[in-house]
């Protein structure tokens, strides 16, 4: 998609600099002249929204780290009293950060489901997709460690449950758990290393985002019709102003939701138990992770064997990386794949259902439903995708992006007339 830069600096200084470091040319070819398919819908604004959220999390996080004290005795009060009350606008920064994590995941999930729906993982975008899966995994690790930092009772319980997973590994499990904790249980050393890693990982995420954007700009964007760009002049528009204005509009609508959370329901997504300080002797009656990890928590609890549960938990993420080779259908977009589209929505419902089950107290009946849903989750990838690749009767795809857009406009005109 990206050829040699067509950027010509206008000023003498610009020409002097460009011949020594063609940075402006890179920006120009990546974010101004870069051709984007003209049929993109608003599902394609979530890449920009995610970039914004990553920067917002890093900026608010750096400010919070200036006031946070990573010690088992001080962490809780430094968050709930110093930051929330004494630091100027500390409450605002903290609510931005804690709710920002949730919205980061919300945007991430929409972005991922969009990729699954429109077949954005298919050739030539397999590497782009796998980098995305790595980013998702890093996000989960970062969010988990961030949730431990306020050192409330749910932070403590969450840290205990998740780090205890390693003890399921045969022979070396307990040693690994002790190594992770820096002691014989979750405690001060665990908190300190989680703080250190929680500060480090976002920058690694940023690096992978760089690779993600790079890979995207090599392969070019997928689009709702899933046909590749054939004629740049007819099928694409320039990134600026066409994609930029849509991204900024999508972002500003997303920010309305973000602001609603920050200013009006800031505690809605936070667990009340985390307003009690961590106490190894008083575990919350009902340990639950944040909403964005609930589906995996449901799977973990659905499996009776601890080791199998951990394997299933990680397999649920790892399976995503193999999607490009599980779904071999030559048609990308679910728009032209009626059966895949049906199973896609069943899959979405299963993920939401697993999330709900993860939030509930485990009972026999719910465990059974969780097992069925866990099976459904894996069946979508391991059975439905390969089978549909060869058996599905797809609808005819448009010959080009321009044709798809023009037919739509024509139909709309006929309908309006």
């Amino acid at each position, binding site marked *: 998609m990206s050829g040699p830069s067509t950027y010509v600096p206008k000023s003498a200084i610009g020409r002097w600099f460009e011949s020594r470091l063609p940075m402006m040319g890179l920006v120009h070819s990546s974010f101004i002249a870069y051709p984007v398919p003209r049929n993109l819908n608003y599902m394609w604004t979530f890449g920009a929204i995610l970039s914004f959220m990553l920067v917002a999390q890093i900026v608010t996080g750096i400010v919070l780290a200036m006031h946070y004290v990573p010690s088992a005795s001080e962490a809780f009060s430094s968050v709930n009293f110093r930051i929330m009350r004494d630091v100027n606008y500390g409450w605002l920064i903290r609510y931005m950060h804690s709710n920002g994590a949730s919205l980061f995941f919300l945007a991430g999930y929409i972005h991922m489901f969009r990729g699954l729906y429109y077949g954005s993982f298919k050739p030539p975008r397999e590497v782009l997709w796998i980098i995305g899966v790595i980013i998702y995994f890093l996000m989960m690790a970062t969010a988990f460690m961030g949730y431990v930092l306020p050192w409330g009772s749910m932070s403590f319980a969450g840290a205990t449950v998740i780090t205890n997973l390693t003890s399921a590994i045969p022979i070396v499990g307990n040693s690994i758990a002790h190594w992770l904790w820096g002691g014989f249980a979750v405690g001060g050393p665990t908190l300190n290393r989680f703080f250190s890693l929680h500060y480090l990982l976002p920058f690694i995420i940023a690096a992978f985002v760089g690779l993600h954007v790079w890979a995207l700009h090599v392969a070019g964007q997928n689009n709702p019709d899933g046909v590749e760009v054939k004629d740049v002049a007819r099928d694409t528009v320039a990134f600026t102003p*066409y994609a930029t*204005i849509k991204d900024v509009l999508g972002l500003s609508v997303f920010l*309305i939701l973000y602001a609603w959370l920050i*200013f009006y329901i800031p505690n809605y997504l936070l667990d*009340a138990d985390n307003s009690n300080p961590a106490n190894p002797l008083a575990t919350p*009656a009902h340990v639950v992770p944040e909403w964005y990890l609930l589906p995996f928590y449901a799977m973990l609890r659905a499996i009776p064997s601890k080791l199998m549960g951990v394997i299933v938990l990680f397999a649920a993420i790892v399976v995503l990386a193999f999607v490009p080779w599980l779904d071999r259908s030559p048609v990308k977009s679910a728009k032209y794949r009626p059966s895949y589209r049906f199973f896609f929505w069943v899959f979405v*419902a299963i993920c939401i*259902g697993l999330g709900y089950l993860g939030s509930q107290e485990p*009972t026999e*009946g719910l465990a059974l439903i969780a097992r069925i849903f866990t099976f459904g989750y894996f069946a979508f990838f391991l059975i439905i995708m390969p089978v549909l690749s060869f058996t599905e009767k797809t609808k005819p795809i448009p010959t080009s992006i321009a044709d798809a857009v023009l037919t739509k406009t024509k139909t709309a005109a006929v309908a309006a007339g």
Partner: protein
Amino acid sequence: MIRVKFSAFAIAVTALVSAGALAAMAQEEAEQPNPPRLNWTFSGMFGIYDKAQLQRGFQVYKEVCSTCHALSIPFRELSDFGGPGFTDDQVKTLAATYQVTNAEPNDKGEIFKRPATPADIIPRPEAYPNDQAAAAAFGKAPPDMALLAKALKYERGFPWFVFDALPGLEYQEMGADYIHAILTGYTKPDDPQWNLYFPGHKIAMPQPITNGAVDYKDGTPPTLDNYANDIAAFLSWAAEPNLVERKRIGLRVMIFLFVFAALLYFTKKRIWEWAH
């Protein structure tokens, strides 16, 4: 159209499966009533704390709750914007009635006591210098009240928890409702530790307050219901003292974002005009 039908079907199937589980759960919890949802001056988009109510609530805390419960906030917060609205002088006078141990020793190396200043944390109850002492007396240490209103919750269940996030229906006062419910939930006169709303009904705190226990100076009737309302409002403020400022800034941010998004929408339409 077909897409909508398919997805609706898929979601309906999942909803049906979950509904069965839900009904089973609802039956399990029938005997444990949820705290009634009350009207608070600080609920909703424009809700703010009622100064007079917070002052009464502080009076209830000082005369009743503080016998056993700590409230680890500095005195100075009592005069902060959006709160009970005491004047700086009132807070200074109030603080001076407490004795605190100085953090640093004096020139001779002696630890000494002095009258509190507004910068000091409100001291713990004298009778219980630490949690262990309180636990020895009650079986369980009375929790610090500074964040209590944010630390209490009850299960809302599906679909209510979804509505709780929506504009106009938003529900952030669960802790206040819970505190009010507990204080008015001692409905078995022969058992002072039986509470209608406490999970399992057996609560470590014996009925702490009854009609007429506190003398209000502003003419508010000295009823248990009023005490429960006022202390719940006061503790909500103690847990979330920036609520008034937060909503005030929030309104401006919302207005800006709506105007900004509208302008961008029209700009986008203009830019894309030819491309469709």
